[in-house]
């Protein structure tokens, strides 16, 4: 597998050299983080459950969504060409980027050609994946994030921790601190008397960004869907920052992963129901923009990005991860995510979907990438809520089989396998254990110690079930 830049923060402490368990252990001890995440994920879980149960045909929509995506992926070459033709016919320009560096180069070149040095951005996972903001900065171009949560992250020099709500790890008081302290450095300052009342915080963001929206001539966006048949781009959002970026600037550059395609206009009737209910737990998100090619006099560029996706596509089990529509329902329901937050996953794609996407897109060279498929108790809650039925536990298990395992674990598993392969061997071990049971330590040795630190270890019985059965003829003697 080729190594693909996935927005993994290189110079930061720990980075790819530190595995998920160590990062997660740190996060678990942060009680403020635990409290923030618990409150937020429980709120959104209940909302999602409510609006999903309203639709009597949710299961059928989910089946259709899964099949549409699978069919698209199977015929992706043809649909990409169809999309390219439709966008070009509608006056847009289509660019192809094999990796992050190429995408960033294309975008920087397009911005430079306009003569502008500032761009506004709509929240986009894919440009986080490519590290576009940093690449633009190196070219002397400043990118301003406009989504409220992205703004909180950018002003706070923080990292996103959630697909939909990148600042989910911050509560209102922390957000107030960031706004009050940092807004002035980026533009219009926060009002002197800013409180931590959420509407006041939203108002501060509105005022801070308004002039920027009205003046900036270039915008960069992602897209939730790209319709091959018509060349239509679709962006779902809530705040109106998306509409500002998509509508007001003279030049619009949209970067999409090649898996964002749907074949036909009609397919939107499925995804416009699945996505908002799964992600923000609303019947419909406040704003959805759809445009085809150059619109209302705008110059429009579409950048199609591979960046490891075709590698994922080649894996029969793993390719279902490409069905993902980035709703984040799996994060919100995940008991592991709820307790550690997104930073522990060390990638722009956190949570259960990140645990299967990052190692596939990025390879499993580092300790972090190898540990991600194990960042799950395989409880299956993610699969149950996934609107396109990605069997995340199955992919996790599949990836676990592809990782390099620690030597001691390999030896232990081989020994256990040898014992369990013959019932006679198992019986002998059970008898031995029964005789030695009083010698068993209360703290388990080696890597098992972490488990027994907070739990009592079950005691071995004097007699196994099979010994009892044999001795008593199944209780008849």
């Amino acid at each position, binding site marked *: 597998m080729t190594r693909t830049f996935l927005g993994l923060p290189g110079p930061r402490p720990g980075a790819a050299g530190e595995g*998920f*368990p160590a990062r*997660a*252990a740190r996060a*678990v*001890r942060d009680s403020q983080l635990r409290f923030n995440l618990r409150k937020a994920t429980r709120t959104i879980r209940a909302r999602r459950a409510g609006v999903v149960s309203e639709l009597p045909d949710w299961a059928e929509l989910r089946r259709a969504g899964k099949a549409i995506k699978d069919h698209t992926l199977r015929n992706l070459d043809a649909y990409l060409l169809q999309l390219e033709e439709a966008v070009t016919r509608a006056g847009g320009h289509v660019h192809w980027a094999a990796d992050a560096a190429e995408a960033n180069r294309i975008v920087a070149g397009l911005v430079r050609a306009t003569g502008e040095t500032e761009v506004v951005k709509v929240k986009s996972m894919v440009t986080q994946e490519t590290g576009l903001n940093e690449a633009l900065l190196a070219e002397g171009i400043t990118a301003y994030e406009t989504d409220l949560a992205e703004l909180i992250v950018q002003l706070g020099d923080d990292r996103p921790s959630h697909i939909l709500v990148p600042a989910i790890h911050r509560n209102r008081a922390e957000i107030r601190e960031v706004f009050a302290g940092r807004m002035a450095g980026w533009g219009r300052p926060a009002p002197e008397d800013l409180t931590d009342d959420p509407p006041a915080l939203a108002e501060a963001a509105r005022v801070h960004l308004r002039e920027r929206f009205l003046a900036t001539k270039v915008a960069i966006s992602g897209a939730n869907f790209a319709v091959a048949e018509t060349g239509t781009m679709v962006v779902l959002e809530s705040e109106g920052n998306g509409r500002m970026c998509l509508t007001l600037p003279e030049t619009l550059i949209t970067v999409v992963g090649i898996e964002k395609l749907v074949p036909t206009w009609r397919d939107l009737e499925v995804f416009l129901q699945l996505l908002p209910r799964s992600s923000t737990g609303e019947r419909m998100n406040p704003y959805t923009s759809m445009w085809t090619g150059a619109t209302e006099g705008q110059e429009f560029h579409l950048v199609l990005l591979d960046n490891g996706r075709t590698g994922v596509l080649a894996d029969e089990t793993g390719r279902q991860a490409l069905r993902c529509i980035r709703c984040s329902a799996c994060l919100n329901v995940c*008991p*592991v995510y709820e*307790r*550690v937050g997104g930073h522990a996953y060390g990638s722009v794609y956190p949570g259960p979907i990140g645990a299967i996407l990052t190692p596939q897109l990025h390879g499993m060279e580092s300790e972090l990438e190898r540990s991600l498929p*194990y*960042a*799950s*108790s*395989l*409880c*299956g*809650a993610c*699969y*149950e809520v996934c609107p396109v039925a990605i069997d995340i536990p199955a992919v996790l*298990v599949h990836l*676990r*089989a*592809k*990782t390099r*395992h620690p030597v001691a*674990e390999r030896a232990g*598993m*081989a020994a*256990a*396998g040898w014992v*369990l*392969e*013959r*019932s006679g061997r*198992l019986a002998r071990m*059970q008898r031995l*254990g029964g005789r030695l049971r009083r010698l068993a330590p209360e703290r388990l040795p080696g*890597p*098992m110690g*972490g*488990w027994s630190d*907070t*739990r*009592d*270890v*079950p*005691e*071995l*019985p004097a*007699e*196994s*079930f*099979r*010994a*009892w*059965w*044999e001795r008593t003829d*199944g*209780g008849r003697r």
Partner: protein
Amino acid sequence: MYGLTIFGLTIQEGSVRVALFITCVNDTLFPGTGRAVVTLLRRLGVDVDFPAAQTCCGQMHVNTGYRDEGARLAHHTIAAFSGYDAVVVPSGSCAAMVREQYPRLPGPPGFAAAVAETTPRVHELTEFLVDVLGVTDVGAYFPHRVTYHPTCHSLRGLHLGDRPLRLLRKVRGLELVPLPNEEECCGFGGTFAVKNADVSAAMCADKVRAVLDTGAEVLCAADNSCLTHIGGTLGRQKTGVRVMHLAEILAATEPVTGAAGVARGGRGGAA
């Protein structure tokens, strides 16, 4: 109790071969659960066999990333249970392993066909009682306040639904109290509890708090691995709450004294 109804066919006792797949965890650590299953099924007129060749379904190996080793155990398990009309498993997670993961495992020629042939006849204990035998009142008596944890693989893998609750509601003397956030994982997850011990402990702490909130004397589940995990914490915290496998409650016909497997502190034995 002269006959047994399987898939709508009433068959005279003796002509149907029912095997108990005890699972390696129950066999080695919780023989009391196995004895309870035998007691319970006999009382319902089912005489189970214990095919001695059985060992382990292979779940630990497969879920930890040792697919080939796990697959060998799966081949062994399928062979051990060939020829039986029904296989009863007192573990939701091992039953889910067979049903969900076996079809995805590599194997020698004939393995896929054997899996396809065997898996429809593998029943988790409550499925066997409710769907195959068609009973919910198993004649049990257990005068205690009990809460039920559905466990992930029983809930989302096997979709057991309310089968366990229907059985518990018919137990005389038993007061069933709902467990808040019951659908949430206890944090066991096999080797997850070892590899990510801190997260696992945090999940378990929340589960324990939910259990204590119910005021139950007994936490019950259809899977001893999850119970060991939660019970280990309940025991360490000296909460006085016992954990019991569902089979042990359903087998009880009078207040049990030490029927279950015993662990330090948390598990088994009547108060």
